């Protein structure tokens, strides 16, 4: 049920301290390819720290991370992206005035041959961008529209299309529904399911228990910088999950470990 033989991500004893402050310690974690897991916990539980480590923004002070079976140490988010771990942030990662196609290929442009000339292959980028968006069922007629014209859910689709462009095997989504209305939230949850159907691993960080219960298979609970346990999503309700986050006590009948 929980983890298959070859996890795409394996964390052993990962910890982080900033000066004398311990933000995270001793986190062991395995996530399978195509799995959708949630990271939950109260403020200060260590979610953001763990996300920053996985996305390459911060480096762990201790412990090891193996990605696709190989130990990795990312120096920057760009490093992690290149390796195949993409992160979508609440609002930082898109350039609002640039077009949909430009946003998808920012930093990873396709070039005309010979490549050393550095000339953009706009036609191919447009064509392939459409293909990535199609995979989310987002039929966009004009790829030259600025991203700021799109709804919040559609912007998430663009951010995820960018992850697909990088052939990401793991996508970390940090509060993807925080600023969205009901309909838009439903759209993002569908996007997450679509990623799962394409065997892309999703790590969802969310304060919304309904969302977490709706799309994930497994929930990692953090408290005061430690992992207190894992929950099989099918065995909890949003309200028991909220209780678990507050107390840090995993209901025995729902525990995954």
């Amino acid at each position: 049920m929980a983890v298959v033989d070859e996890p795409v991500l394996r964390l052993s004893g990962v910890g982080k301290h900033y000066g004398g402050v311990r933000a995270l310690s001793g986190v062991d974690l395995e996530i399978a390819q195509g799995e959708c897991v949630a990271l939950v916990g109260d403020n200060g539980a260590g979610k953001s720290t763990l996300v920053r480590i996985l996305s390459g923004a911060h480096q762990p002070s201790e412990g090891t991370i193996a990605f696709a079976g190989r130990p990795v140490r990312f120096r920057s988010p760009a490093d992690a992206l290149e390796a195949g771990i993409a992160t979508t942030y609440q609002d930082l990662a898109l350039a609002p005035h640039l077009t949909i196609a430009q946003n998808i290929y920012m930093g990873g442009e396709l070039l005309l041959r010979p490549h050393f000339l550095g000339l953009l292959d706009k036609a191919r980028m447009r064509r392939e961008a459409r293909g990535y968006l199609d995979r989310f069922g987002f039929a966009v007629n004009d790829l030259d529209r600025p991203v700021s014209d799109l709804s919040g859910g559609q912007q998430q689709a663009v951010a995820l299309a960018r992850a697909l462009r990088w052939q990401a095997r793991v996508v970390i989504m940090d509060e993807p529904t925080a600023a969205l209305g009901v309909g838009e939230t439903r759209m993002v949850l569908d996007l997450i399911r679509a990623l799962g159907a394409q065997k892309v691993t999703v790590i969802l960080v969310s304060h919304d228990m309904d969302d977490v219960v709706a799309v994930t298979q497994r929930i990692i609970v953090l408290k005061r910088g430690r992992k207190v346990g894992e929950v099989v999503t099918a065995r909890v309700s949003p309200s028991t999950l909220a209780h678990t986050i507050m107390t840090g006590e995993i209901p025995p009948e729902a525990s995954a470990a």
Partner: protein
Amino acid sequence: MRPLVARFGTALAACAVFAFFALTADGFLAPYNLLGIAKQISHIAILAIGFSLALTAAELDLSFANIASLAAVACGMLVHTHHSPVLAVAAGLGLGLAGGLLNGAVVTLLKVPSLIATLAVAAIANGLAFLLTGGVSVVGRWPTSFTAIGRGVWLGVPMPVWWMALVALAALWFLKQTRTGFRLVCTGEATQAAALAGVKVKHMKLLGLALSGLCAGLAAVILTASLSSAAPNMASDMLLTAIAAVMLGMTMFEPGTPNIPGTLVGALTIGMLANGLVLLGAPYYVQDIVLGLIIIASVATSASVLTRAAFAV
């Protein structure tokens, strides 16, 4: 409908300015006057394109006019002392580029905001220009192989206008067709997002400022050749004019973003205003008042990158 007004509103206003002067100012429509305007704005347009490129990376370059003056006196002194025109041109371009690189280094390595860094470099360039010349102009009968850069005419069109067209096309092609140009745009539009996507934003900011310096060097060479003279403050008047052209340009075609066609139309509009006002008999200082108003009106309506660049610390 509204996006159309936003994109082409000021360009239409420029046409209205043109029509107004065509109807009211005697001699405005004469071919030599129109070519004269184009020649007059060519240096300013090249400086303005440089400023646009730095601003595209969300950095302000307030030093280009003083860097141009410094490059002009270096170039002029070399020609004056009978050095090869090739060396003089190389010195002008090289000093411009060096000034731009200095700006870029101060901004990216020392983390001084470009608003301050380029003001400081402007002061340094100004001081050096006066130091080099002892405060006097260099004037002389220079070889035509040099002066042709600014005074030559090809197909009936003065050389500076050709240079302006060449720089504009090169800048446009760079921004629209090359990966580096696109990344320059990304850096200015969303610095953080670009960095997260692996764009080396510091290199891009350095590049934008370096290109602005290079344009200043080129404008200086052309100006020196057209005037057959160089003075340590010869380009200082062009600072505000070029910035006004860019600001005005940012209200058209791609509102809120520095763009090359807008910058050209902006420079042309300002050139027409200056020319037309003179033909109508207005005192020259009226131009300054008009420039100031243009800058305020343009920035108030659309200048998102500019405000970000000015207040980025």
